[in-house]
């Protein structure tokens, strides 16, 4: 992480820090609960948790404005919560229930919200990259100043369609921010074993796309870089690449024993780089907040997540008639 940019001396309000803290904590607790529900058999199939990477989406959402779009991979719960989707609807989709965002027909990997401009949730590695550029294309076509965020991982960064998209996004100056969430492992393959060049932020150089590496464990650094990228895109200067140096604490999916890395490596990350602890420390040491205030937030978040879990467990399964709906508009 040595090359990643740190945030400058934080010049942020206590209120903003508290918001970041609360949003990251929401994702963390939500994902822990999802893991629990998976263990109880309430969530099936694949379930990819975002724990450890919370600062990336929370920081970037802080740089976005109304009407901006986002699209991501199957590790998507954090993105949905960060853009304001209802935790109940997300959790109920994980349990495959009627109250889920896709009425239970999409599942963990395939969720959408037109209202929040969240365009999925895509299960095919890197398919969301041209889709994100397509959303940017629509913005440019319509002449508005919105931008799209196309999130993908270090594994997806080696897919051919990413480079086809880079070429066209640059050629057509599409307002698209390509966010490479480099959590260092493409499933079980470390970056070193899968990428000929580890500096993923330079992958747009051949297409003239500026890129920068960002400390993805520091929400303020993420937000700051996000603001630069957004300004670049809104100014009509074309796409921008942000490589977020981050880390996932859990396995690739629930069924991943994660034998490809040591426990010590994970423990070290948790102990030294945790994005939530980082902000918590800033709040407490800067005397922006008291332990009691933070505990109150923890409690509130826990309650929301627990209500989401209840909703997701109680919401009925979709009616059998739903099998044949939404195939054609």
């Amino acid at each position, binding site marked *: 992480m040595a090359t990643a940019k740190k945030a400058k001396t934080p010049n942020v309000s206590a209120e903003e820090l508290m918001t970041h803290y609360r949003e990251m904590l929401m994702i963390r607790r939500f994902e822990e609960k999802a893991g629990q529900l998976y263990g109880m058999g309430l969530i099936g199939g694949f379930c990819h948790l975002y724990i450890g990477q919370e600062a990336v989406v929370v920081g970037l959402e802080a740089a976005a404005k109304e009407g901006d779009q986002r699209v991501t991979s199957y590790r998507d719960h954090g993105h949905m919560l960060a853009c304001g989707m209802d935790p109940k609807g997300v959790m109920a989709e994980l349990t495959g229930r009627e109250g889920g965002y896709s009425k239970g027909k999409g599942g963990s990997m395939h969720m959408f919200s037109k209202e929040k401009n969240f365009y999925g949730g895509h299960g095919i590695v890197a398919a969301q990259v041209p889709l994100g550029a397509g959303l940017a294309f629509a913005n440019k076509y319509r002449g508005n100043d919105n931008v799209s965020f196309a999130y993908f991982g270090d594994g997806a960064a080696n897919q051919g*369609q990413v480079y086809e998209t880079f070429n066209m996004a640059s050629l057509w100056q599409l307002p698209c921010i390509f966010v490479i969430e480099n959590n260092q492992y493409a499933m079980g393959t470390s970056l070193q074993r899968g990428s000929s060049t580890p500096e993923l932020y330079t992958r747009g150089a051949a297409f003239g796309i500026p890129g920068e590496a960002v400390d993805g464990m520091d929400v303020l650094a993420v937000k700051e870089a996000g603001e630069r990228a957004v300004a670049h895109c809104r100014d009509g200067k074309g796409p921008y690449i942000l490589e977020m140096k981050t880390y996932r604490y859990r396995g690739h999916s629930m069924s991943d024993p994660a034998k490809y890395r040591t426990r010590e490596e994970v423990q070290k990350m948790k102990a030294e780089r945790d994005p939530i602890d980082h902000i918590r420390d800033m709040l407490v040491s800067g005397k922006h907040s008291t332990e009691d205030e933070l505990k109150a937030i923890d409690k509130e978040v826990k309650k929301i997540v627990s209500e989401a879990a209840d909703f997701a467990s109680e919401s009925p399964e979709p009616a059998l008639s739903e099998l044949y709906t939404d195939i054609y508009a």
Partner: protein
Amino acid sequence: MAIQILMPALSPTMEEGTLAKWLVKEGDTVQSGDIMAEIETDKATMEFEAVDEGVIGKILIAEGTEGVKVNTAIATLLEDGEDASAAEVAPVASAQSAEPAPTAPAKAAAPVSEAPPMEDVPEGTTFKKQTVREAIRDGMSEEMRASDDVFLMGEEVAEYQGAYKISQGMLDEFGPRRVIDTPITEHGFAGIAVGASFAGLRPIVEFMTFNFAMQAIDQILNSAAKTLYMSGGQMGAPMVFRGPNGAAARVGAQHSQDYASWYAQIPGLKVVMPHTAADYKGLMKSAIRDPNPVIFLENEILYGTSGDVPELDDFTVPIGKAKIARVGDDVTIVSFGIGMKYALEAADALASEGISAEVVDLRSLRPMDTETVIKSVQKTNRCVTVEEGYPVCSIGSQISSVLMQQAFDYLDAPVINCTGKDVPMPYAANLERHALITTAEVIDAVKSVTYR
């Protein structure tokens, strides 16, 4: 002896062309590589170069002559020491190899002789002759005039005017914002178009051929076809994927495949494969307006064929509706796209032998109007299907299955599926002819099911 200069074939499907302009005159000396004439094919105007050096003896075909068949002598070239009189005695035999390649059954660009689709238009409608190529362009252009959300993207669609000249003139009318040249990256631009459709635009994606759409099939199936379902109805992909599909002529295995049954299998997609110019236009307009992703399978050999297109302000053909292209009593021939050519030719030939064939043009493959097929079979009690694609899991096998389940008691003979052969398309002209379906095979199949 004077050399004959022959009308060249300038594309895989060219059979004739217009000798637009002579750039040399009798008595001119030409070197190899000099441009002698401009020849217009149905796709482009091409320069025609000399391959030998010599003096132009006689110009045999005047400039401006249309319909000059490939391999017709168009001029003579005198070699050293010859004078113009040598041209007079030059043999006029074809320069073709010993066995002149007979025209493959599907290759003739003859006008489609089919009754106008009266069912789709009000009484008293007038018609104009148009090529399939023009009909597709008019369908797209009318919809682009009607809605700014509609745009066309693909390889060579704008400045080149379309690899097959489909989008000719569209860049001039709509500008580069809406007629967009893409780099050669099918996977990428198909994905960008799907993303734009999620945001509510209505892209028309041209694939130079559907063979190249294999590079993009993940985006077509996994992103375009499934998102409406996966989002619980929140968002889908209102768009059209179009381009030539199936065999052209002598382009070999990788450029000659019919993908009809591939796409017809996918829930979430609509699939059309028209035959006549009118249906091309009417279905194109319906496809663009449809809120779902539509696979619009065209055929290069049909591009130059003409048909009667209704002169209406807004002529559309509904997706999912077959039509009776020819009424008959003894057998039902079901086909679509280029297959209709063999079906109709066979029906003509069979009529002279006293067999009356009803020909159903499916037009849409998904949803498929099996009701019209069943109704016809209930009348004729026999069915032959005709398509260019492979035999395994073909559209014909689907129709056979439907008839077995829903019209079993009406069948007096097993259904026969006439298809392309179960082989990659060979290059050799004779092998290619045998790999494709032929009219003779359709006639044989009909005779078999009618026990003649």
